[in-house]
């Protein structure tokens, strides 16, 4: 029995898997948005991870992880988020709690650590991340932060990111709550009327700069980016923008909602991945500000046309080679999954498997509608399920993060890293080109013909012929 047959879906996982375009008119909604099954080897992370992912790119802040060393060590300078100035955020600061701290409490150590580090690095603000045990040992992190803030004169902000509190989604909310404490504290008198914030772009490999350039050419002022190439002072002023663009909607919609409620700033959920979604995002902004700036739609068209003209010849070449190839997608958030399904279509490829760690019912309904019939859709999957479906669907490419990479490679399948650790810019038009190059480089590589699973296919009867 081969692995595709022998890997059984755990009974408690069955309701989280469905197939697009099959059967009933109103299929049962996918089971999602719930705790991971114990022992299932989820690909998800914890609340701490969610908070750390969101706040990490704020470059001139001190990020202190309050807890034992692991959580800080595993998040030390592994991401592709870039800064145009301060590199302070790339350090890993930890209170490195020891047994005595766990017994007697870590408050004194936390206060002393904050004072030391603030004196040494002069950050614009400090974030203090709680890890699993901080709540359990009863440290009053809020009080320590207040005390240190008063003593040092910079905002010291606790992040309620105890890992066990939930998935990354829980951590996203904690991070938004934390960063929200900065907002509204800066002067917005000089901000122009056509101005936006970019939420949920993390400047992986300089993507924020790519997107900012489009808006600059359109004549739209970007007040703050949250949090790519982020600066504390810019974030303080982001309540002065007139529109929030929320990319990576899972992570920062809650912040956008707070800004809408308290400051009356509307928001639009967008994606910067793929030609279609990138263009839609720019046109969305143009339409929003057209009443104040009638020339904006025209300038936007120019930007879009110029960018697309630049990349189409090369893209066409890749498309010719990649047409008909099949892909699997497993990513954190659903909006990225939507964009990837579309971006793969731009390359002539189909999506055979798509899943996310944190999608909700609406997201999965959207995927069911946009994917070709037969596409497997999974929520909160695990390595065995992903391997099973990759084999059953016989995909040529896997798009995911480092945890998914070995599943693909061991089976002789190409891979594209679309996670925060990547060092390639994949957003914007140039990002689409980079994406196409990477997909092409992996899918068309000659190495696969030597991998056993694919080699069997190329020459299945070598031995028999020799014997005959």
């Amino acid at each position: 029995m081969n692995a595709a047959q022998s890997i059984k879906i755990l009974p408690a996982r069955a309701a989280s898997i469905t197939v697009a375009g099959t059967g009933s008119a109103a299929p049962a909604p996918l089971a999602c948005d719930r705790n991971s099954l114990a022992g299932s080897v989820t690909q998800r992370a914890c609340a701490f991870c969610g908070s750390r992912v969101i706040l990490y790119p704020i470059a001139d802040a001190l990020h202190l992880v309050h807890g034992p060393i692991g959580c800080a060590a595993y998040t030390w300078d592994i991401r592709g988020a870039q800064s145009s100035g301060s590199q302070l955020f790339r350090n890993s600061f930890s209170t490195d709690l020891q047994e005595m701290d766990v017994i007697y409490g870590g408050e004194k150590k936390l206060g002393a650590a904050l004072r030391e580090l603030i004196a040494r690095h002069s950050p614009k603000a400090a974030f203090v991340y709680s890890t699993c045990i901080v709540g359990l040992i009863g440290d009053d992190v809020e009080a320590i932060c207040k005390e240190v803030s008063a003593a040092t004169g910079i905002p010291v902000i606790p992040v309620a990111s105890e890992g066990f509190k939930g998935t990354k989604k829980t951590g996203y909310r904690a991070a938004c709550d934390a960063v929200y404490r900065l907002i509204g504290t800066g002067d917005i008198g000089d901000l122009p009327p056509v101005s936006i914030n970019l939420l949920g772009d993390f400047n992986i490999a300089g993507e924020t700069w790519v997107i900012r350039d489009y808006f600059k050419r359109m004549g739209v002022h970007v007040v703050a980016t949250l949090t790519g190439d982020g600066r504390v002072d810019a974030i303080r002023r982001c309540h002065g923008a007139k529109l929030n663009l929320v990319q990576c909607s899972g992570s920062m919609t809650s912040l956008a909602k707070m800004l809408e409620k308290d400051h009356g700033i509307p928001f639009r959920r967008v994606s910067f991945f793929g030609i279609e979604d990138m263009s839609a995002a720019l046109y969305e902004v143009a339409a929003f500000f057209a009443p104040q700036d009638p020339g904006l739609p025209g300038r936007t068209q120019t930007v879009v046309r110029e960018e697309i003209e630049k990349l189409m010849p090369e893209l066409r070449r890749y498309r010719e080679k990649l047409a008909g190839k099949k892909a699997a997608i497993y990513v954190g958030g659903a909006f990225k999954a939507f964009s990837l399904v579309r971006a793969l279509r731009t390359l002539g490829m189909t999506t055979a498997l798509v899943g996310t760690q944190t999608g909700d019912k609406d997201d999965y309904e959207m995927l069911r509608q946009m994917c070709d019939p037969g596409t497997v859709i999974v929520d909160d999957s695990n390595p065995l399920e992903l391997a099973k479906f990759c084999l059953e669907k016989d995909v040529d490419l896997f798009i995911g993060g480092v945890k998914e990479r070995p599943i693909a490679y061991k089976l002789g399948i190409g891979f594209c890293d679309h996670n925060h650790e990547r060092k390639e810019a994949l957003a914007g038009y140039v990002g689409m080109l980079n994406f196409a190059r990477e997909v092409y480089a992996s899918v068309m590589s000659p190495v696969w013909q030597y991998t056993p699973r694919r080699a069997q296919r190329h020459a299945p009867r070598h031995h028999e012929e020799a014997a005959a």
Partner: protein
Amino acid sequence: MIAPPESFARVNGTDPEPYPNATTNACKLCTPLGACLAFRGVRGAIPFLHGSQGCATYIRRYVISHFREPMDIAASNFSESSAVFGGGLNVRIGLENVIRQYKPELVGLATTCLSETIGEDLAGHLQDFHGGHPGGVDGAPVPPIVPVSCASYRGTHAKGFHDTVRALVDTLCPGAASSSTGSAGILPADDAPASPNGTRAPRPRSPKDAAAPPPPVALFPGMLSPADLRELKRIAAAFALPVTLLPDYSDTLDGPSWADYEKLPSGGTPVEAIRALARAQASVEFGRVLARAPVTAATVLARRHGVLPCRLGLPIGLRETDRFIEHLAALAGREAPAEIARERGRLIDSWVDGHKYVFEKRAIVYGEEDLVVGLASLLAEFGVTPVLCASGGRSGHLADALRAAVPELDERTVIREGADFAGIADQAAALQPDFFIGSSKGYSLARRLNVPLVRCGFPVHDRIGGQRILHVGYAGAQSLFDRIVNTLLDRKQAGSPVGYAYL
């Protein structure tokens, strides 16, 4: 000399080993990572972390970034309610699911700081689990479940690794008085005296054993690379000496491309082979710092089963490898095979060829304490001065172990336990190093000082092939020497205005 304490103000007062209040860019990882690595070296084993799912996810990602191999780690996925009411239910459901899905030959159940802090009764949970599943899980038998305590506020990944190796032996090689297999092993409280270093004769075999094949030697290699583990097996095979390596992740973390998906990668030390260590003819345990720990896998075997332990340094460099080879020769009752002797000869020959390029060069060495001892010993052998030997570990024995292994160390060498990379950076520039040697984590500092980095140890996640870096044996010394010399030559060539292609 031991470096003066860091300049940070401390709140821990008179603690003889004061901890700084903040660690910046740690030179260590957490205990469960070490546990997961060690469990990966048992055939058909799956590591299972009792705690939040983030621990498993972070560790998987980290391990994959170095080995570039699948690394499935299950977790009990604590939620807010399990943190309050206990994780017993999560352990049960988690174990059921992992056994159902993976049909493992062993489950390695490590705690995390979360489950340790709330005081989970792991032994009780396991007893309940075994009691509740007499017929297995959906027809799959319940495999041995080996618990190990991994509070990350107690020690580093190196401790997690060694504690796990000990827990495997402790659970699978019970003494006469202990309960039978598979039950939750309680770690022994008695501190058997640590055996001194040095070569010992093998346990004499009775005449009736003469016809039977000799029982294997237990070899506890410590946290080495898959290439190292293969090299150790090759050396033992050259002596025709049966050896059981524990752990052995030489295949599971550096395996071939697959024809079909393997739920758990093939390879690793079989559970039966671990059980058989109770009858091992002798044990060898690497690590001069580890040798100062009161209870290890080797001491458990010695105390319970009379297996004679030999505790050596990691066989890195000429002298430490000589000691290992001499010991193997004694165990095998024969001279070192010609093939090994010639490797040794070629190594020395290469040192002669390259000695001028390395003499009195200054190196900063960092990593796990025992790795630092091995590397410092190697460097000193061909005249490099280790100007700083730093580790995130805090055994209290690093300086002693270094002095014992590397007699030529003098006051030029700064030794730091409990170091982080901020502390190393504080001293590094003044030490004027010619190169760094250690994991990828030293890269940013080396880059800032414009000094080359020779990558070894774990993690190496800015280069391909971390799993294939060879450190041990004469071949490992050869490989490291060639890389060090060529790194220095490359630097000299690149910095030269002339750019000779003939050096």
